[in-house]
Every structure is written in structure tokens, then in C-alpha cells.
């Protein structure tokens, strides 16, 4: 028995030691690349500090680089204004927890409410409620079906992203003179509407060139999911001419799979526009030759516009005295030629 307990003490202290060693290993401060509009008062009369605006902010706690960038951008942009106070609540894991978080936020009566809902349809009622309580709602990216539920909607263009990727791939293949190309596609979570819109745009753009997708393997927006999907796809298409991967975060895994299989005969287009992807395009040493944007910079713009709404101002370049109701960002194609310009927009 004494033998056993000594063994346990040994194991116990070894475990404590390992624990102490490990806790030292969680320190983790990667450089954050936020996209902020640094204000210049001479150029933009709206930049001058005005009436104090309290902006309520809520975005899902999703563990994805893009959503993280949305929250970071909103915070950084709010910090750039002396007249803005940001009250951010994390929306938790699903629509129900976000609804609860938003209820407490609305009760605090912010001047404007900015939210990226888990699901536009499910949180439509919250938008309506806030608007009725006299709080203008800025909907970020995921639209409410009811137009009375928001004052401003600012979102990316999923369909346009597919168009941009399809057009780039089509043009490249045409200029190379490939007549019957094999094109692969790795979408994100296939059940999401945004994925379906992207794929639809991609197929339509390719159709204008007379091309079509040979094989598509959905991943799940994670790097390991991307690696698995890409491995399957590469196995199914022993020769490929072009590949569109919907998301640069999962693209880390896709590129890993490409390297592991030593395939170089095709070129790849990414999606979203992460910093790592833009760097890889600039370096031009992998199959990744372009990426089509779906930029989280929209969160920074949403905060700027929420401030203008709170202060009853319009966008200074436009004739209208108020901020427009809907803004859809264009999906831009980043290639080696213009990568330097976009480097600051990478997340």
C-alpha cells in the first residue's frame, strides 16, 4: 500500500508540475490587424466630434477568424471616435442567447444598435422591437426579412463573390486557352444560405464561359475540415485546372492538403480576403493566385454609419441628408497586382 501511495504522490506531483509548465504556455498575443478609418477632420466634416452617441453592439461568439475580425473592427473603430461609447455584448452560441443578450442591451437604451444576428430570420422580432422603442437598428451582414426591422443594412455580397471568383477563373482559363477545364469547388457549410448563394454565383459566372464545376466537396469553415475536403477533392480529380475555396480560414487547410499531395498543376482562388491569403498571393509561391473579398471591414463602416445616424448626419459625399437604408459591399478580386493596396484590409 505504501508503495502504491508513493507512486500516486509521484504521479500527483508530476501532474502539478506539468500543469504549472502548461499554464505558462497559454500566453498568446498575436498581432491583430484591424481595419479602422482614421479620421481626418479637414477632409471629412463628419469627423469632427459631435453629440455623444452610445452604440450597442452584438455579434455571435463564433470561433472563426472572420467573426472575430468583425468584433475587433467594431471595437477599434468605436475607439477612434471621441464621441462614441460602445456597449458590446457577446451573443453566445445561438439565436436564443443572442435574443436574451439583446434584450438587456435594448433595456439600456443605446442611441443606436448594431448587430450581426446569428440568423436574420430568427432575430427579426428583436430588430422590430428595438425600432419600435425608437432605437435605430444597423443590421450587419445577415439581413432581416422585415424591412421595418432595420434602419440600415450593411452586408457583403455572397452572390457577387461567386461571380467574382467564377469570372476570374473563367478569364484565366480562357487566356491560357484551356478548352475543357476541370474545375473544383470547396464551399463552407453547405446548409447555409450564404454558401448556396456563393455557389450559385460561381456556377452562373462559369456558365458564361461555357465551363462547369466538376466536383464540389463542402467543408465546415475550419482548417481541418478544409484539409479533409481538399484531400478528397484532389483524390477525385487527378488532374485539375482551377479550384475555388470559399473561405480563406479553411483555406489554410486546403493549402496544406495541396502541399501534402504535391499538386501544382492548377491555380486556386480564395474567399474573404484574410491577411494570410493576401500575403500568400503577394509572395506568389503557392497555388493561391487570387482571393475574392468579403471583408469584415463592414463592421468598422457600420460603427461609423451608426454614429452618423445617432447624430442625424448624412454621408458627406452624398446629396442625401441621412445615411441610406441599404449598403451592399462589392466583392473585389485581389490578385498579385493589387495585393499591396489590399494588405491593410486583410484580417
Amino acid at each position, binding site marked *: 500500500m505504501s508503495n502504491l501511495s508513493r507512486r500516486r504522490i509521484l504521479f500527483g506531483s508530476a501532474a502539478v508540475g506539468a500543469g504549472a509548465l502548461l499554464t505558462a504556455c497559454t500566453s498568446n498575443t498575436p498581432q491583430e490587424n484591424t481595419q479602422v478609418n482614421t479620421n481626418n477632420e479637414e477632409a471629412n466634416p463628419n469627423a469632427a466630434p459631435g453629440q455623444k452617441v452610445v452604440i450597442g453592439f452584438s455579434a455571435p*461568439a463564433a470561433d472563426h477568424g472572420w*467573426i472575430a475580425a468583425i468584433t475587433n473592427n467594431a471595437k477599434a473603430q468605436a475607439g477612434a471616435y471621441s464621441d462614441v461609447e460602445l456597449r458590446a455584448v457577446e451573443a453566445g452560441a445561438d439565436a436564443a442567447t443572442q435574443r436574451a443578450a439583446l434584450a438587456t442591451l435594448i433595456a439600456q437604451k443605446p442611441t443606436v444598435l448594431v448587430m450581426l444576428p446569428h440568423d436574420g430570420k430568427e432575430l427579426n422580432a428583436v430588430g422590430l422591437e428595438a425600432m419600435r422603442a425608437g432605437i435605430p437598428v444597423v443590421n450587419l451582414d445577415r439581413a432581416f426579412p422585415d424591412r421595418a426591422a432595420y434602419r440600415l443594412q450593411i452586408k457583403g455580397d455572397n452572390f457577387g463573390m461567386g461571380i467574382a471568383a467564377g469570372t476570374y477563373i473563367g478569364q484565366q482559363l480562357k487566356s491560357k486557352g484551356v478548352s475543357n477545364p476541370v474545375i473544383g469547388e470547396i464551399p463552407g457549410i453547405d446548409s447555409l444560405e450564404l454558401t448556396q448563394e456563393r455557389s450559385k454565383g460561381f456556377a452562373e459566372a462559369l456558365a458564361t464561359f461555357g465551363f462547369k464545376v466538376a466536383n464540389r466537396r463542402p467543408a465546415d469553415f475550419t482548417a481541418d475540415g478544409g484539409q479533409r475536403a481538399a484531400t478528397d477533392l484532389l483524390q477525385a480529380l487527378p488532374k485539375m485546372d482551377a479550384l475555388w475555396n470559399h473561405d480563406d480560414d479553411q483555406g489554410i487547410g486546403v493549402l*496544406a492538403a495541396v502541399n501534402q499531395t504535391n499538386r501544382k498543376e492548377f491555380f486556386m482562388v480564395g474567399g474573404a480576403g484574410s491577411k494570410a491569403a493576401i500575403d500568400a498571393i503577394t509572395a506568389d509561391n503557392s497555388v493561391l493566385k487570387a482571393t475574392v473579398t468579403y471583408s469584415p471591414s463592414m463592421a468598422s463602416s457600420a460603427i461609423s454609419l451608426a454614429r452618423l445616424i445617432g447624430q442625424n448626419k448624412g454621408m458627406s459625399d452624398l446629396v442625401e441628408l441621412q445615411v441610406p437604408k441599404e449598403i451592399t459591399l462589392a466583392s473585389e478580386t485581389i490578385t498579385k497586382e493589387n495585393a499591396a493596396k489590399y494588405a491593410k484590409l486583410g484580417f
Partner: protein
Amino acid sequence: MTDQTTKASLPAQSPPVEAPPAQARARGNWFKSDGAEPLRRNLGLIGVLVVLVIIGAATRPELYGDATWVKNNTFTILQQASAIGVVTVGMTFVIIGGGIDLSVGAIIAVAGVWSTTLATQSYGTAGMIFTALVVGVVVGLINGVLISYGRLVPFIATLAMMVAARGVAAQISGKQTQVSANTTINSIASTRWLGIPVLVYILALVVAAGWVLLNRTTFGRRTVAVGGNPEAARLAGINVKFHTLLLYALSGLCCGIAAIMLTSQATSAQAAMANLYELDAIAAAIIGGTLLSGGRGTIIGALFGVLVFSTITNLFAINNLSTEAQNMVKGAIIVAAVLVQQFRYKSLTQLLGRSSS
């Protein structure tokens, strides 16, 4: 009951069953006995694998006509099965021991993320591997303590751990994808020794170790005893609580190994990694013949379970079929495997009852 009827109840015709008739007759009784159940099931799973390969060859003859492609494809299937296979070995032990571990995916995430923080990466390859393994074991130990000494139901304890560990992973990673800059770790997935991917060696090693541990050590015998009848095991002098604790730690260790394998494959880790691995691992263990109520199961069966899933994924990919259809087929296979298990178990007990009376 003849040998023929036993064969007919297998999920598919399996060529390996056709052993020389003389030998089959000599071993006939043993082959029909309860003890040979795992063997029959494994032969059935091999049959399913053969059928899947035949379907693949029939639908894409131009790919299967190329020998190099077939060899590469086999390695791809094994590689795709490697990380989940390692997790399934640990899961099989836990289930045989009468428990369940719903937190394996989350443990992989927390081990993967912890081992790829900038601070850990600065300790080099050994530091990263050490961290992943220790984090896996520690989280497994917490599960074990909650279940054996805190008297929580395994389902609840590991469900709580699944949520909490993903939370820890998201907290550490700041919800970002952490890219591994360690070339040694990253090269594990692309390196081949003697033409065979390193990941496949790791899988083989873990499966072999699991087989020896389950079948050739007192630890394995105790696991079966604890899962089959905990009270009898306690009366027989087995420290049931401590043994249960060790089983969850073992599952955690497997998750730590899988975390390194996945990190190497994706050259990165993030809090959402290894999504739903718990369900894949449980499903593979179940179709491999492990009883969900414990006390029965095999490592080799679990390996075949993983391989069947991996081959189905591959088959659907090379034919460009949707993942929706693939998931439906996977679901059907799980149900079929359990039905076969129940059917066979009942008929066998009846058979035994009749012969003894």
C-alpha cells in the same frame, strides 16, 4: 444451424469467410459460438469494405484502372481515417468500460489550440507534442474524477466537458485560427517512410497498442469486467473507480495524439476543429461491435468501423455525390450494424439456451 446461415446473416457477402470446408467443419462449433462473434463481425466489415471498393471500381473504372492512383487512394483513405481512428481506440476502451466520452472533439480542440499558442510554439516540436498529450490526459483525468469520484453520469460529465473545453479553446485562441509555424509538426502529414505516410504508422501503432492493452493485459481484462458488471468487478477486488478514471485519461491521451495529427494535417488549430468527432468515434466503435452498455467490444472492429466511414466518404467524393446523401448512408449503416448486433445476440442466446436444456 449450419455455417451457411451464419454467413447469410452477415451484412454483405465476404470472400474471406470462404475458408476451406474441412477446416470450417472442424471449427464449426467454435465459429458459431459467442466467442467468435467479433471475428464474424470483422469479416462482415471486411466484406462491406470490399463491396465499397467494387462499387468504386465500377463507377470510376478509369481511376481504378491506374495502379498508382489506387495505391495513393488507399493511403488517402487511411490518412483520412488516422486521427479519428486514434480517437476511436480511446473511445472503444471507455465504452467497453461502461462509459461514454462526448468530449473527445472538444479535447482535441483544446489540446490542439493549447499546443499551437505562440508561447508553446516557442518551445519547439517537443514542447508542442508534450503540451498536446498532457492537456489531453489532464482533461481526460478531470472527466474521470467527475465520473468516478463525483458520481456524475458519464453522459452528463462529458457533455459538460464538451461545452467547457470548447470554451477554453475559444478563450485561448481568441477565436482565431492558429497557424503552426513548426515545420517538423507540419511535415508529419506529408512525410512518408518506405512509401507509407507517417500518419498511417501512428494509427497502426495506436491500434496495435490498444489491441495488446485490451487483450493481453490485466488492464484490458479489468476494463471488460468493469463494463460488463461493475458490482461483480468490485467484489472481485478491482478498484472500479480508479479504473474508470484511468479509462477517461486514456481517452484523453488518444485525443492529445489526434490533436497533433490534425494540427499537422491542417497546419493549424482552432477552437472549432474536430467538429463532431465524438459522434464519428462512437458510431465507428458501435459498428465495430462494441456494446454501448459496455463489457464487450474489439479494437480491430473499431478500426474497421472507421475505415468503412472513411471509404464511404472517399467513394462519394470520387463520384461527386452530395454530402447529404453520404450522411444518410452513414446513418443507415449505423442502424444496420446495431440491428445485426441485436439480432445475432438474441438468436445466439436462444441457441445456447436450447443446446443446454
